[in-house]
């Protein structure tokens, strides 16, 4: 055990058991998986992506490149999980990944031996011969070797939610700057959300033993937190990462509600996606330490200096027994000396700088820490066993090299401000030479930056900036603010001398540890001309791993800048985009999965249909009855045939409430309809309905349906189910944008009316039995295409339309939606003596194909009115939407495929929609393509399959044969072209 006996923000009263690679260990509440592993002396935790090199814990935060594990097991397995972010819980199970057969003995570590040949971009230069070997041999091998963890083997059993939050000031990060910003804005009365990625607020203050106002920093954190908690207008959200800045003050955040539990409690989501709408935001995201690159810098035991200090102070876990520090800045010295004071065995500090500030040097001497100034680590060493961890270093200083024993090397090449969110609107960070770091350039509207995220690394500055930016944000909202008293803190110098890479060091020197990008790879990219930062990234994969290059980007481009001779600022960074840290896909999806992927709309008669055993089918958002099977029927076609025959022979009913229904009222309603339909509606008699076709402005058919005139200035339109929303939007566009002078009001009444179609020779008799006295449905009272208002079922107001989609005598009865089910039952009762048959949309389709009506399969948006045989409907006496463009030669071309009917020459053959038409004898090639079959049905009336389709010169070819070519289903046979109306072509039945 390497756990200190006291100290740290862990609860020693709450021990927790966990397993890593099957072996049991113990940690405490407050630990992360990484701190608990270190406390248990587990130092080898992973294998790298490309060379499968042994890797240990490198950091203590989201920047972790190496310590990636598969967390949990079974359906909850989470690959690539950073051990540094995992809160320990009792029973936690994790395993290493990307290794076989075991972490210590990984067979693919042989890749490391081949590394001289596997430099940046090697795969672009080989694996090309012979061509078909790529998919069969090379790529499968590469794919199996690539990737890190494994996806869960089953469906994610946890739930996710989405939520919205609104605030005046969003403070991102609850370190010293964020606490002060939240306090300043909160005291001013602003509605504040303080979002913190960690499960504990305090940021770096949790990882350092420093004092604020003469007391341990932890007391400052606790007191500030207590005050923030006491303010009703401040909401503190821990375990919440703000991952993206979107337009108009929208921020995306993910809250890990129950990731710190073995499983979520019942009804508790695993994570919540927050959409936070903030007027102002203050980014207090801190900074990330970066390493110095040198040969062998990836051995387990090499870690960031600030991370080592974090493990010592926050988790009371010693990262090793013999520590050395390699640095180029004073902050790392303070970390080293504080670790030593806390009980870590820090044996040496190696600094590339020849001089160091006297107080630091004195303190090191006082604590007995050896210092090597002007020194560089030029090699690292470990035992010979596979997976061995760090055992020593070779240090070069003042012309001499010497070997030091150390199992832990804490490295610091300086700190990089976490500018990521400032770049989400395209802001480009700018280089500050004095701190050797990129700082925020332009920021998204409403977002300002404070503290280390802005490049201010001294605690006094961090506290001050936080207070100032919090107060400014509140003042921007018009709130009165007071200046916060700043607690006194010790002076801190950062004092960095930029240093990136130990040239000439021994062994591969890793810049991007997760993707195994070395300094030499950057050299290859430079030689081959991939010198812009984006080319560098894309060619070498630098910064493209799960850690998003947090510890490698700046170093990599600094090495490139050295090679090109350009400055780092001039070289620039790659662009940071959302998400700030990787976010679970499940969180973005929320509950939209499975049956809840999209809402389900049910018709007013759904329960009634279900009670009759209907089979339902998805049609857009709706579930509609597809058919109503009866006992003894063996397949759907048998059922549908019965339903179709019943309609033709007697009477049937179907719910057609899904049609769009639009109420139009106003003195100009008729004129308006004349402009949107190709045919005329202003002359329609009151009490009559008319079939109409409307075009898009480009001349193609948009939709069809019937519109009835209920009064002088009152019409009601029906649209197809699919286009209900689109047509309403289009009509509002015409009215509000094109012709605001027209006095018409549109109301969507699709939801308000249930509508049932009643069809068949007995339909009038059935209808007559449910209408109230005074509602006349005789042929005189309600002639073909008539539309009247009346009442049914004893006082239920109704609209009655004499319409037919089936070719039979038919009616549509609309009642207020709540009476829909009663209407269906009333019709069923009234029709019992006629054997009334409920039918589904399959039979509806057969009936309309038999009659030759077009529907969704023909209204593809690629067809003209003429294509559909409806061209003659167009009035020539008026303009309408689409008229001008429909006259273009390509649209008006008489050779365009147009609607005809088809039947198989061999009547036993089954037609298939989607078959293409060819002239018999012509080759099956695109130049001979003459159209395609749009809709097919088995006609029980005719006893064979029939179809509708679009055929070049179709109407002229009636009586001829064409070839229906359907190779995707293995069909190729001749069909006869016929008129698109297989039943009652004169329309006598529907007028009867």
């Amino acid at each position: 055990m390497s756990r200190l006996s006291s100290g740290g923000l862990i609860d020693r009263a709450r021990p927790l058991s966990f397993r890593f690679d099957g072996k049991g260990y113990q940690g405490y509440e407050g630990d992360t998986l990484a701190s608990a592993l270190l406390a248990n002396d587990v130092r080898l935790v992973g294998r790298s992506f490309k060379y499968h090199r042994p890797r240990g814990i490198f950091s203590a935060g989201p920047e972790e490149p190496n310590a990636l594990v598969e967390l949990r097991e079974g359906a909850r397995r989470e690959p690539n999980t950073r051990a540094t972010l995992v809160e320990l819980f009792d029973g936690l199970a994790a395993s290493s990944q990307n290794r076989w057969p075991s972490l210590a003995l990984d067979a693919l570590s042989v890749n490391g031996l081949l590394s001289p040949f596997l430099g940046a971009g090697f795969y672009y230069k080989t694996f090309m011969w012979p061509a078909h070997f790529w998919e069969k041999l090379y790529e499968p091998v590469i794919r199996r070797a690539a990737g890190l963890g494994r996806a869960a083997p089953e469906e994610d059993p946890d739930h996710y939610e989405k939520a919205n939050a609104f605030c005046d000031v969003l403070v991102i990060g609850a370190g010293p700057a964020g606490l002060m910003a939240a306090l300043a804005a909160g005291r001013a009365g602003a509605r504040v959300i303080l979002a913190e990625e960690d499960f504990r607020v305090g940021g770096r203050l949790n990882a350092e033993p420093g004092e604020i106002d003469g007391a341990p920093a932890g007391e400052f954190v606790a007191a500030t937190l207590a005050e923030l908690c006491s303010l009703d207008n401040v909401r503190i959200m821990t375990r919440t990462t703000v991952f993206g800045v979107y337009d108009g003050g929208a921020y995306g955040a993910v809250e890990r509600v129950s990731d710190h539990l073995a499983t979520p409690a019942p009804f508790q989501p695993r994570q919540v996606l927050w959409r936070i709408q903030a007027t102002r935001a203050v980014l207090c995201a801190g900074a990330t330490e970066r390493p110095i690159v040198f040969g062998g810098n990836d051995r387990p035991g090499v870690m960031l200096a600030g991370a080592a200090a974090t493990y010592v102070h926050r988790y009371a876990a010693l990262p090793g027994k013999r520590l050395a520090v390699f640095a180029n800045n004073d902050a790392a010295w303070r970390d080293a000396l504080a670790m030593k004071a806390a009980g870590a065995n820090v044996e040496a500090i190696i600094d590339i700088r020849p001089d160091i500030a006297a107080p630091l040097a004195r303190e090191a001497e006082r604590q007995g820490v050896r210092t090597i100034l002007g020194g560089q680590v030029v090699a690292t060493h470990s035992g010979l066993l596979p997976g061995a961890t760090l055992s020593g270093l070779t240090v070069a200083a003042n012309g001499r090299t010497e070997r030091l024993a150390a199992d832990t090397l804490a490295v610091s090449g300086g700190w990089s401000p976490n500018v990521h969110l400032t770049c989400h609107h395209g802001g480009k960070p700018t280089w500050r030479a004095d701190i050797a770091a990129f700082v925020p350039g332009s920021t998204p509207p409403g977002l300002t930056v404070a503290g280390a995220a802005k490049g201010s690394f001294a605690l006094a500055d961090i506290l001050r900036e936080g207070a100032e930016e919090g107060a400014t944000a509140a003042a921007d909202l018009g709130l009165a603010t007071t200046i916060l008293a700043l607690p006194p803190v010790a002076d801190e110098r950062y004092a960095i001398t930029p240093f990136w890479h130990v040239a000439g060091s021994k062994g591969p020197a890793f810049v991007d540890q997760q993707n195994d990008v070395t300094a030499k790879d950057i050299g290859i990219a430079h030689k081959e001309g991939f010198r812009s930062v984006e080319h560098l990234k894309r060619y070498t994969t630098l910064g493209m791993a799960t850690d998003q290059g947090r510890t490698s980007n700046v170093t990599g481009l600094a090495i490139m800048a050295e090679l090109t001779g350009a400055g780092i600022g001039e070289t620039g960074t790659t662009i940071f985009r959302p998400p700030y840290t990787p976010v679970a896909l499940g969180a973005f999806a929320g509950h939209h999965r499975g049956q809840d992927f999209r809402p389900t709309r049910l018709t007013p008669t759904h329960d009634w249909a279900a009670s009759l055993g209907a089979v339902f089918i998805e049609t857009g958002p709706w579930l509609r009855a597809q058919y109503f099977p009866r006992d003894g029927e063996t397949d759907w076609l048998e059922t549908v045939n019965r339903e179709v025959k019943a309609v033709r022979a007697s009477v049937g009913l179907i719910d057609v409430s899904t049609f769009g229904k639009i109420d139009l009222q106003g003195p100009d309603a008729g004129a308006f309809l004349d402009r949107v339909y190709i045919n005329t509606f202003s002359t329609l008699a009151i009490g009559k309905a008319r079939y109409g076709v409307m075009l898009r402005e480009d001349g193609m058919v948009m939709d069809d349906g019937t519109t009835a005139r209920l009064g002088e200035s009152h019409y009601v339109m029906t649209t197809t189910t699919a286009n209900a929303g689109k047509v309403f939007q289009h009509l509002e566009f015409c009215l509000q944008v094109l012709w605001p002078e027209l006095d018409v009001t549109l109301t969507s009444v699709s939801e308000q009316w249930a509508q049932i179609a009643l069809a068949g020779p007995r339909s009038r008799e059935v209808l007559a039995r449910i209408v109230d006295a005074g509602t006349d449905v005789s042929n005189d009272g309600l002639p073909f295409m008539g539309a009247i208002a009346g009442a049914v079922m004893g006082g239920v107001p109704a609209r009655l339309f004499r319409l037919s989609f089936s070719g039979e005598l038919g009616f549509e009865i609309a009642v207020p939606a709540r009476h829909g089910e009663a209407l269906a039952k009333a019709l069923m009762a009234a029709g019992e003596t006629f054997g009334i048959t409920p039918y589904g949309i399959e039979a509806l389709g057969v009936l309309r194909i038999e009659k030759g009506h077009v529907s969704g399969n023909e209204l593809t948006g690629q067809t003209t009115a003429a294509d559909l045989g409806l061209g003659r409907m167009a009035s020539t006496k008026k303009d309408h939407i689409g008229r001008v463009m429909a006259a273009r030669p390509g649209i008006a071309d008489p050779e365009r495929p147009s609607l005809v009917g088809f039947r198989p020459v061999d009547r036993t053959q089954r037609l298939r929609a989607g078959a293409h038409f060819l002239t018999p004898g012509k080759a099956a090639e695109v130049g001979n393509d003459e159209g395609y079959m749009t809709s097919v049905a088995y006609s029980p009336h005719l006893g064979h399959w029939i179809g509708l389709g679009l055929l070049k010169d179709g109407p002229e070819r009636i009586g001829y044969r064409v070839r229906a070519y359907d190779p995707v289903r293995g069909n190729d046979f001749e069909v006869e072209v016929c008129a698109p109306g297989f039943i009652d072509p004169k329309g006598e039945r529907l007028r009867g």
Partner: protein
Amino acid sequence: MRYSFLSLLRNGLSGQSGWKPAWRDASPKPSYDVIIVGGGGHGLATAYYLASQHGIRNVAVIEKGYIGSGNAGRNTTIIRSNYLLPGNEPFYEFSMKLWEGLEQELNYNAMVSQRGILNLYHSDAQRDAYARRGNAMRLNGADSELLDTEGVRAMYPFLDFANARFPIRGGLLQRRAGTARHDAVVWGYARGADRLGVDIIQNCEVTGLIREGDVVTGVQTTCGEIRAGKVGLAVAGSSSKLAAMAGMRLPIESHVLQAFVSEGLKPLIDGVITFGAGHFYISQSDKGGLVFGGDIDGYNSYAQRGNLPVVEDVCEGGMALMPRIGRLRLLRMWGGIMDMSMDGSPIIDHAPLPGLYLNAGWCYGGFKATPASGWCFAHLLAKDEPHATGTAFRLDRFRTGHLIDEKGVGAQPNLH
């Protein structure tokens, strides 16, 4: 330098010291026979084919940033020829055939990988539409197969077959489709063009066109004036901006399309899958990341970034299709600016001004078109007549009504 096992071996033994730049970083000459504006895949392929197929080597490709910095470097790398309409399908099938020989031709491994694309359908109407499309593909000499539910299950048993809001009823499969490494396509064409003498000029932005009367005779750039016999624009995303320099308005809107990649995983998805009941498609890269996308954001934008609703919509589609990916993490997302044309299909044509040529309007489907687009644009530039497979991509089709509207949504770019 020819790439081979031997070159890798030699450089491995010599400490990787022998590599040469993949292409020269050229400075502009005063004039060229042809200038291609836009150093993306289409522009570089055009230059390559001008040199290799037509012997026109005095060519410059001018790029305002680094090559491949536009949509060539920010797409989801899918290649396919599963189009419906006769104006499109011959072209895309030609492109597929060029992909199939591309790496050997360029001596560059662009990881062209024909692992198949499966378009799922969820209703009878969708099935019929895919049958129509699959048959059209066959008529054009492409491959297509119509699968039923069991056929899909055999390929991808982990899709949500049990509890789906829109059950999977089958799919249209094109086995020859797949993916290619997008950056490598750019670099491979750049290297190939460079070796044939083409100048690739990066960090040089075109600021205006030089005209003598109506005739375009060169470009003004941030690197000075450069003359040319012919100027070809291949700047999808920015076509309207360049066209405005010629006083033209185009039937194009610029829209942002977001794309996404997950953390790297062991192999999960072999080919490309598109969801038919939402806006979602997905594949897995050779590095292991799930690469996926969905619908465009839907409003004019030049910002190369989108908003959360589309991110959510895409992930909802993903979870509806394959609910086992819920715990995988989205690693990066980015936006590209699409030339959304008014019928959803591209334009390869003369511009109204003599000397100016247009390659534009690729919507979100330009990557797969790269080889054929370059081939056809080079043909047009060299011979002043359209290539046989690109004859439908005329600018005047909007005037004549010979539209190529695969989706049937009309002059509404954000719906294509």
